[in-house]
């Protein structure tokens, strides 16, 4: 029988009942599977027929090693957020679709990628979605349960779902903070300083901070004399990441070209030409001043940034500054001001801004060695008497070690044998044996080896 080997397609869990059936069949003479060194097997009963037990397309498993990094990343974010005064919230995975369709929240392109469906009681025809964004649900939570409480610093760690084609992830994890109830440039600067704090603690190098301003973008678009339909479309394509389109359209208005061509750290141009620009384009004055104010604080804090007005990729709900963090070409986080969002939800005139760090992108970018703490020493506990063995293992855990019970007879760096007469033998990786009378003595031995 011909063997088709196509490991890209199939990954099977050896323990599943499905696979037992194939083992069973194999014994009957099919003999058509390959066991790999990972304990993953690729069974084929006949040519072209294969078993498909695999994770959904676009979804990601995280291995123990990746989870260790993930938790550490999340922990660093959480620590920073808490120290800056933010409190954690958790919103549900499922929300009503209309929360995201209300004008000025997500672009139609993003809405076209949401996972929407009818709930089990969805006979009204209104759909629900798997949360595609982190900010909108937190704004909803604030409006629903915290309205009127003034300033709120909230943060979350959650997964977002958007449809992507090819091998891109459809489920993404992010840690984000929302600063609700403050409308000042200081508030914007706080979020950028906070994000920078996290980035520094993650020991990330060559991170670029790019700045744009939604208010400026909108004022410029208004200048292009487009009908509302075209203006929406253009704004959407900028938000969806197309940076060339605005430059193309703005050639007809020279002042715009000047503004849009500003790139880099130098904001001298903006400052020096503020008067002239405001004279030529009076509509941009409030936004330009707002932008300059925030930038002045960033300069005071000595935060490095690049200004690129036409790189406004982000969310439609932004009204003020938009900031994005990049490493190489990859965006690892960002945020912005969304003063109209809570208002549109009926939560009153509440200014707000927020930021988010994309955890799953960082898993591959951070150096695990610099992020992870020194591993806790692991001891394998062997013994014939369960009662004694469990007790000794427990004592080791109390002392801060990882104590694993021996189930498969394999040894690790440190093995502790519990003899039937109560004697203990500690065996190092080099097979060096040391006897001990009590578990306290063992702990001392381990600690003497620099093992905690």
């Amino acid at each position: 029988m011909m063997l088709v080997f196509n490991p890209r397609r199939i990954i099977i869990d050896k323990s599943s009942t499905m696979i037992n059936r194939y083992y069973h069949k194999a014994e009957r003479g099919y003999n058509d599977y390959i066991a790999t060194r990972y304990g993953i097997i690729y069974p084929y009963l006949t040519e072209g027929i294969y078993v498909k037990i695999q994770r959904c397309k676009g979804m990601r498993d995280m291995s123990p090693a990746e989870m260790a990094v993930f938790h550490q990343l999340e922990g660093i974010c959480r620590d920073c957020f808490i120290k800056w005064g933010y409190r954690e919230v958790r919103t549900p995975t499922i929300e009503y679709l209309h929360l995201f369709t209300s004008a000025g929240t997500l672009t139609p392109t993003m809405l076209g990628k949401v996972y929407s469906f009818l709930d089990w009681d969805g006979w009204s025809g209104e759909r629900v979605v798997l949360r595609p964004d982190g900010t909108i649900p937190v704004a909803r939570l604030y409006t629903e349960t915290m309205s009127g409480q003034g300033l709120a610093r909230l943060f979350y760690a959650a997964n977002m779902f958007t449809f992507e084609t090819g091998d891109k992830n459809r489920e993404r994890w992010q840690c984000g903070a929302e600063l609700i109830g403050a409308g000042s440039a200081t508030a914007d600067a706080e979020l950028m300083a906070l994000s920078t704090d996290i980035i520094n603690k993650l020991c990330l190098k060559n991170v670029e901070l790019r700045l744009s301003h939604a208010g400026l973008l909108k004022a410029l678009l208004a200048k292009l004399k487009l009908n509302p339909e075209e203006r929406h479309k253009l704004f959407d394509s900028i938000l969806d990441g197309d940076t060339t389109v605005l430059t193309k359209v703005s050639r007809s208005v020279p002042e715009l070209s000047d503004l849009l061509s500003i790139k880099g750290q130098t904001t001298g141009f903006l400052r020096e030409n503020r008067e002239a620009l405001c004279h030529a384009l009076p509509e941009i004055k409030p936004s330009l001043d707002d932008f300059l104010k925030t930038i002045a604080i960033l300069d005071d804090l000595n935060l490095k940034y690049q200004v690129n007005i036409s790189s406004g990729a982000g969310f439609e709900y932004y009204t003020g500054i938009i900031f994005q963090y990049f490493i190489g070409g990859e965006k690892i986080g960002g945020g912005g001001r969304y003063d109209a969002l809570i208002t549109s939800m009926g939560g009153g005139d509440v200014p707000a801004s927020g930021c988010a760090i994309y955890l799953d992108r960082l898993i591959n970018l951070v150096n695990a060695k610099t992020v992870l703490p020194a591993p806790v020493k692991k001891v394998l506990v062997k013994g014939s008497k369960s009662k004694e063995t469990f007790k000794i293992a427990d004592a080791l855990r109390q002392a801060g070690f990882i104590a694993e019970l021996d189930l498969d007879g394999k040894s690790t760096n440190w093995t502790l044998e519990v003899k039937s007469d109560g004697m203990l033998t500690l065996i190092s990786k080099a097979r060096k044996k040391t006897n001990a009378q009590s578990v306290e003595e063992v702990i001392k031995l381990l600690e003497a080896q620099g093992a905690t």
Partner: protein
Amino acid sequence: MPLKIALPKGRLLRKTAALLQKADWRLDEYHSSMGFYRPKSARFPDLLVRVFHEKDIPIQIAMGNYDLGICGLDWIEELLVKYPSSDIVKVKDLQYGQSWLYLAAADKSLNMRQNGFPLRIASEYPNLAEAYALKNRLSRFSIFPVWGAAEAYPPENADMALLAAQDAAEIDGYGLSPICPVLGSSTFLIANLNSHTKRDFEKIVTSIVNTTPEDIKTLSEKKEVALRKIVITTKYSRDTVRLALPDGHQQQQTIELLNKAGIKIEGYPSIDGNRRPKIAIDGVAVKVIRPQDMPLQVANGNFDLAITGRDWLTDHLAQFPSSPVKEVLDLKLRKVRLVAVVHQDLAVNNAADLQRFVNDRTEPFRLASEYVNIADKFARENHLGHYRVIPTWGATEAFLPDDADLLIENTETGRTIARHNLKIIETLFESTACLIGSTNSVNAEKRQRLDYIVNRLHTAVGDC
């Protein structure tokens, strides 16, 4: 494996048959909507031809069950807009069967971006309707996917309808105003993407493409009865009882029942397409819609009472277990059985056999049915493991054995099933026409009117 093509029944059948005749296919039985749905071509004897409802064809091509298909662009886009990475290649516009999809409303000045209550859109094209709503930033909307008669919904039961029409005048005839055209549709030859790159069907494609469409276009259009413009005057008050009556072949039995109940009704069945007949009971408004759509419409409060089948009520409750819709009265008409059907050659005779059969195979088990939610529940309850439900829009018998493994079908006598060389392995339940209503509370005046209708019908059924 032979090359396979899916041909449409329904509105495109005549012109597609004419096209293939001109292309010298010499098909033996592709000329009526009845028959066995398995024509053979004398020119391409190895080609496997099947006839499907037009709506099923893009799905069949995308799944790879068929290499080629002919159907309207509207149904292709309805699939692609929701599943853009579907394996479909548009090979050629065959330039017949043109139509437009219009978004229409009774009131042209409708504010589409209103906040507050959701804007309701009724359509046979729910995916296109949703895409339109998202693209045009409707802040809050509900889509009513309907089997047909979308034009009957606005303004009382929906704010807008997305529907197919020859031109704006046809929309006008329904008493609606076209807001905008959403899609211009035509008949297309489509292919499965993998087949298109790997299989050689050039001869077949060439025979179709080289046949000049002009000859087809000149075919005399079936003369439609000029529609009298429907004037919508219905104003519902809070106390108005809204009754839905079925269209199609159930109309005769329904009118007989109403006669027996002493309920006079005018304009049902309608001769001019008016779906709002007059009933001789004060405070009761009647609308004629598809029986398939009634349970959902009663659940969402659009109608208070409806005459439909228990099969559709059961399907609705399988999708929405906590729905407020309930059976009010068994009308004891149109008795059918809902059955699970497999091919005669399959060594499966009952549910236990079925489970063994499914456990011993590696590919997903395929259930085809008009009753997708009943089929889904059947698969879950019978532990069918890895399964897929293929939604169909009629002519489901043609799916076995090549394109599905099991059908959930309704049958009166079992003759059609036997004629297609199929067998029944389980009867799920018996279905008759029934009056359905909602458990939601109503005010006293309305309750009185509802009771009056129920009592009249109860007496009529008792006389049967």
